[in-house]
Every structure is written in C-alpha cells, then in structure tokens.
C-alpha cells in the first residue's frame, strides 16, 4: 500500500484542522437493512469505496452494523455454495452488529487508543463516524488515523524542539541577567562600603584644612613673640604679644586636640578603601581558563569582604575554620561567584539577631571540601530537592531569578566537582562544595 500522505488528502487536513476525526470523514453511502448480500458485494466494487474495509448498514440515521470485505470473502465468495446460500438474504444476517463507532469530535489520539483496544487483528474493518446527535455521518479508515497520528507525533517533536531552543535562549538571557543582578548588588554594596569611609575621610580632611590657618597663625605669632623677646625690642614684643593673644583667641584648642583622633580615623578610612579596592581586583581577575593554582582561602576571604555589606546588614557573625588545602587549579572568578552566592544566601536566610555563618575547609579523598553553614530559617524538606533547579525560587518576584544556585551547580560541575545541601528548618542550612584537587585535569573524563 502507498503510505505517502499525499495519496490521502484527508490525513494532512486532519492535522491542519482541529485534530478531530471529522477531518478524516469518508462520506460513504450506507447500505439499507433491506439490501441483499449480493448487492452489498457489488457495492464494494464501487471505486468510491475502494479504500474501505467495511460498509455501514444504516436505517433512518441509526447505524445497525457493518459488513466487511473479509466476511463476504470468507462466507460468500470463497465458501462452497456461499453465493447460493447467502446471496439473496438481507445483508444484516452477515453484519457485525457492534462495529467500532466514534463521534466526529473524537481526537485523533483518542481514536488511535480506541482502535488499538477495540479492533481485532488482523484488521478487517474500518470504523463508523457519528455526528453529535449519534446519527451516521460517514466512515473513517483505520490507516488514515495511524498516518495522522504519525504526522502529529512528528509535529509535536518539532514543537518540542522549538520550545527547547526558545528555553535555551531565554535561559542564556536569564543567566546574563542574573550576572547583571549580582553585579548590581555588588556595586550597591561596594558603593556603600566605599562611600562610608570616603564620607568621613573627606569631611575630616576638610575640617583639618579649615583648622590649619588658625594653628599656623598661632605658631607664627608665637615665633614673632620669641623673635621680639630675643631682639629685646619692647615695642615689638608688646605688639607681637597682642597678636599672639588674638591668634590664641581665634584658635580652638579643643578642636585641635581632636585632630589626632580625626587623622587616625582618616588613615583608617583610607586603609579600608585601599583594602576594598585590592579585594575587588582579586575578585574581578580575568579567568585564564582554569590555569591558575589559587589559594582557596584567599578566594573565601575576598568573597567575605565583598559580601560584607550583606553580612553587616543582618548583623551576622562569620567564623572560618580553614584546613590545609593545597593551591587549587580552578577558574577563580567562577569559584568566587559560587562562594559569593552561598555566603549571600546564608546571610539572607538569617532573620534573627544572633546570626552565624561558619565556613570550614578540608581535604577529603582528593577533593577540597568547602562547607558554608548558617543558622538561619532553613529550607523546608519539600523545597530542598528543588533548590538547584533552574528558575526555582522562593524569593518574591523581582528579587531573584532562581538561577543563582543552578549556576553554582553548573560551575562546580564544570570543575569536576559536586555541590550539595542539607537543611533543618529553624536550625540552618549547610552547603558543601567539593572541588577536585587535581583541578581541570581531573575533569577531562566526564
């Protein structure tokens, strides 16, 4: 049989339409109950019915049954005396009184299922199609259903492929926007961290500058007095003493006494800004493709410094217990992103005032293990298995893309490592990251 869809216009039409059986309808003229078996045989020879395995017998719109080519062959044409025995009898004597009858509104998928359940093998008959009122509408061919199903499956596969591609693209965009969001948070935090010392440094310097002229005139007036005294010029001494007295009146000794403390603060502030800039430089180091052997603890310290504003905001104490970890070959900026994310999450998970984040490191079986533990609200057991899923978030809309941890997992896995979390509600959460000590080399084998 020709299986190309073009030989059967009905099948593609079904796909384009509402995907119901209506599109496969063959408007075969039914037989009447008074029709004889011989007449029914002749009707099968009609080219309009060439594709049909069976013809319906209908009385006043009601389907009484179907007569199949197969039955006619076996019982009438091939059996001895079959024509004589059955030829003149009404067709109803040989019909199948319970043919498969489907409504026009049945979907192709449902029809495929029903056909599979109801029809006997080998397939010797087609099925009757009925309208909404249950009356005969026409016939449907089993093979057409199969073909339509095949096309629909292909179409679904294509839709899936499209959806997959769209999803992939939007995931990429979201990863970018997550990076931007992280960057935005970072900038906000850093701006705050830098502007605070900058505020008092600038102010202290301005105050010092304003104070210096009065100190300067006091010193000058003092030395003028000394000069006059040494020169033994009484008149000059008198006038320079007056100047000294005026200079002393304009001078604020209390302010001057505070100057040392002010300048100590200023030095401290400048040191803080220098620190931040140094850490920022470490942090934004361009990746030289896993080539670097880095001190993991340096990375953790940098991440803590950068996340400082988050921890400070929630008044969280940080404890670090570092083990012996040899330099690690990794992409430092990526590992930074993971650490920043875990520390940030830990800080956000804490909503009481005795918050504590503990970071432990150790080596274990060829891996560097980093554990980040908080004593925050914990993750409910039903949520825990989903935290690494892309787009999964429990934060309010607009506060997280739900990609942070999924990106962390990607990064860790691309390093040949693993990340896992354990959590107890109201007790806290612990994330453990394991990175192979051999670094990039270990992950060449997938």
């Amino acid at each position, binding site marked *: 049989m020709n299986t190309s869809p073009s030989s059967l216009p009905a099948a593609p039409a079904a796909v384009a339409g509402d995907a119901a059986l209506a599109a496969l309808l063959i408007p075969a003229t039914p037989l009447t109950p008074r029709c004889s078996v011989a007449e029914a045989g002749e009707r099968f020879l009609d080219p309009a019915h060439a594709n049909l395995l069976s013809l319906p017998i209908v009385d006043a719109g009601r389907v009484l049954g179907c007569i199949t080519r197969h039955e006619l062959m076996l019982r009438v044409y091939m059996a001895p005396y079959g024509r004589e025995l059955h030829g003149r009898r009404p067709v109803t004597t040989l019909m199948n009184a319970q043919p498969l009858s489907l409504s026009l509104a049945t979907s192709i998928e449902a029809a495929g299922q029903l056909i599979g359940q109801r029809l006997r093998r080998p397939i010797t008959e087609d099925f009757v199609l009925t309208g909404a009122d249950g009356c005969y509408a026409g016939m449907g061919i089993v093979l057409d259903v199969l073909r339509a199903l095949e096309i629909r499956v292909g179409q679904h596969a294509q839709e899936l492929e499209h959806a997959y591609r769209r999803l992939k693209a939007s995931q990429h965009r979201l990863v970018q926007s997550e990076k931007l969001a992280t960057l935005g948070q970072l900038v*906000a*935090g850093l*701006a*705050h*961290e*830098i*502007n*605070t*010392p*900058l*505020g*008092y*440094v*600038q*102010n*202290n310097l*301005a*105050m010092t500058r304003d104070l210096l002229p009065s100190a300067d005139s006091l010193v000058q007036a003092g030395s003028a007095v000394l000069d006059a005294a040494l020169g033994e010029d009484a008149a000059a001494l008198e006038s320079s003493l007056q100047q000294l007295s005026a200079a002393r009146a304009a001078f*604020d000794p209390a*302010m001057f006494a*505070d100057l040392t*403390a*002010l300048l100590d*603060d200023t030095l*401290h*502030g400048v040191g803080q800004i220098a620190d931040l800039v140094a850490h920022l430089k470490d942090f934004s180091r361009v990746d030289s493709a896993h080539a670097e052997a880095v001190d993991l603890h340096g990375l953790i310290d940098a991440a803590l410094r950068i996340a400082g*504003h988050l921890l*400070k*905001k*929630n*008044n969280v104490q940080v404890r670090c217990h570092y083990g012996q970890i040899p330099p690690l070959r990794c992409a430092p900026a990526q590992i930074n992103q993971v650490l920043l994310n875990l520390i940030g999450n830990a800080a956000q998970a804490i909503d009481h*005032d005795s918050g504590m984040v503990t970071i432990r490191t150790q080596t274990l079986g060829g891996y560097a293990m980093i554990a980040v533990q908080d004593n925050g609200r914990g993750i409910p057991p039903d949520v825990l298995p989903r935290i690494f899923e892309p787009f999964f978030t429990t934060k309010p809309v607009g506060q997280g893309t739900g990609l942070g941890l999924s990106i962390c997992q990607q990064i860790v896995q691309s390093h040949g490592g693993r990340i896992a979390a354990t959590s107890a509600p109201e007790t806290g959460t612990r994330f453990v990251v394991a990175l192979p000590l051999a670094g990039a080399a270990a992950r060449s084998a997938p």
Partner: protein
Amino acid sequence: MTSAKPCVVLIDDEERILRSLALLLRSRYEVLASTDPVQVLQWVRSRPVHVVVSDQRMPAITGVALLRQIREHSPRSMRLLLTGYADLAAVEAAVNEGEIFRFLEKPWDALRLQDAIATAAQIAVADFADTPAAPAVAAPAAAAPVLVLDEDPLTATLVRSLLPSDCLVATAATVEAALARLEEQEFGVILAELRHSSDDVIGALKLLKQASPRTLSIACSPLRDGRLLIELINQGQVFRFLPKPLGRELLRRALLAALERHAELRSEPQRLRRHAVERPREVSLSGRVLDYLRRIRDQARLRA
C-alpha cells in the same frame, strides 16, 4: 542640660562618621550621636530634638524605618537621610514612608550638609517655639481640587473614579496648560507624570513648590530613576512617588493623604515652612512658563 543651641541627633553604624560629623557640627549645635537606634528613639521621646540625620543601611533597622518611628514620636523633628548608596527602594521609601526633608549622599559636601541642617534646624526651632498645635481643625467641607498633568487621559479618569464626585479634577496635557489652571485657582494636589514628550515636568514641579508651596505634588512615572527622585525630594519636596502603572489603592491613599495634608497646611500655615526646598540647579522652562510661575507665586502669597 538645657542649651540655647538646637539639638541635632546623628545615627550611623560607623562610629567614625559620627565622630567626623559631630566635630563638624558641635560649634553650632548640641550634637548627640549614637550607633544605637533605641538610644536615638529614647532621645527623641525625652527631649526636643530639632534635627535627626540618619544613615540608611544599618544592621538593626533601615534609616527610613527609624525616621518613620521618629516622625510618630516627634513630628516636629526634621528628618534627613545620609546614605552611602541611594538604591531606588530606599529613595522611594524615603518619600512615601519617611516624608523626609532632605536626602543626602556620602561622601557629603560639608557646606551643603551644613546648609541643609541649618535650614532644618531653623524650621524645627520655630516649630518647637509655636504653641502645640491646636486639636485637629475640622476638615473643610469639600476637598480641594486636584490637577492631573499627564499626556495619558486615562490617569485623570482613574483619579476621578477614586475621589468623591464633588471633588474637582482638572486635567492638563502640558506644563503650560497646567500652570494656566494653577493660576486660575488654588489646587490642593497636582498629580504629575514625570515623563513628558516635550516638557520638563520635573523642573516645573520644583519651581511650583517654590511658587505655590501649599500645593502637594504626587509624582508618578514608569521611569524609576533614584537620582531624579532625590532631586525631587530636595528641590521639590515631592509628597509621594508612585510607580506606573498606577495601583488603584496606592493612588487612592496617596491622593487622600495629600488632600488631608493640604487641609492641614491651610489651617496651620506655619507648617508650610517644613516644605522649604533647595534652589534647583538648572531648569529648562520657557519664559512664558516662568511668567506663569511668578503670577502663581504672587497669588499664593495673597491667599496665604
């Protein structure tokens, strides 16, 4: 303990900021400084505090939340926010919840900070000298009219649907048309979309506050620009900022609060001084618009 100098309270989680500011201010004010919000609330409850300067990001509480509490305890204290990073949420909250007098940024300009504190202190000293406000004056029979300046006519439709039917809601699509309406009569509230295809609405709002300080402005916009908003606080004393699309309930509450405040300002004109603004730096408005503003100012003075 009593001092002739106005009292300025400083709060910041960085002690060095407090030391630095205290030294800057102590010659002119009695300065109380603390890193502890509880201590600050204690001071505000127990003695006249003329000015409070608060950091925004602090471990225990945000500056906006603290200033809101201070407003409840001591409404006459002038509130200033001094922040290291003006994130949009903080600025919006500063307008809508804190009703702050000035939004200042670190590192600060010493002169500008001193100016702002001096203005604030002067206002608060006058407020504290006034006899305590008379018990609530009966609200005026009808709400003052509301002017909507927006190229989108739907905004006015929404405003009309939220206000009682006897409240006049006038509309204007341009700054000039809005000022023409403002010249005709006093409006209690102007609701203005900041984004305009041709006009400088922001500049107009700033100058309008100078010309007609009693008219309260509610700014709305899909634009969410922290910097613009800071200027609108400092130079326009914007009463509320609402992001677009407008939420019915938020808008309704903002309109009612503004109308109520306007009624208070009518019955207690001395409270107007709390709406003093910084001189805007640059405004791009035509001479005609400026003429309108001059006339509006003259009339506002007559009405006062």
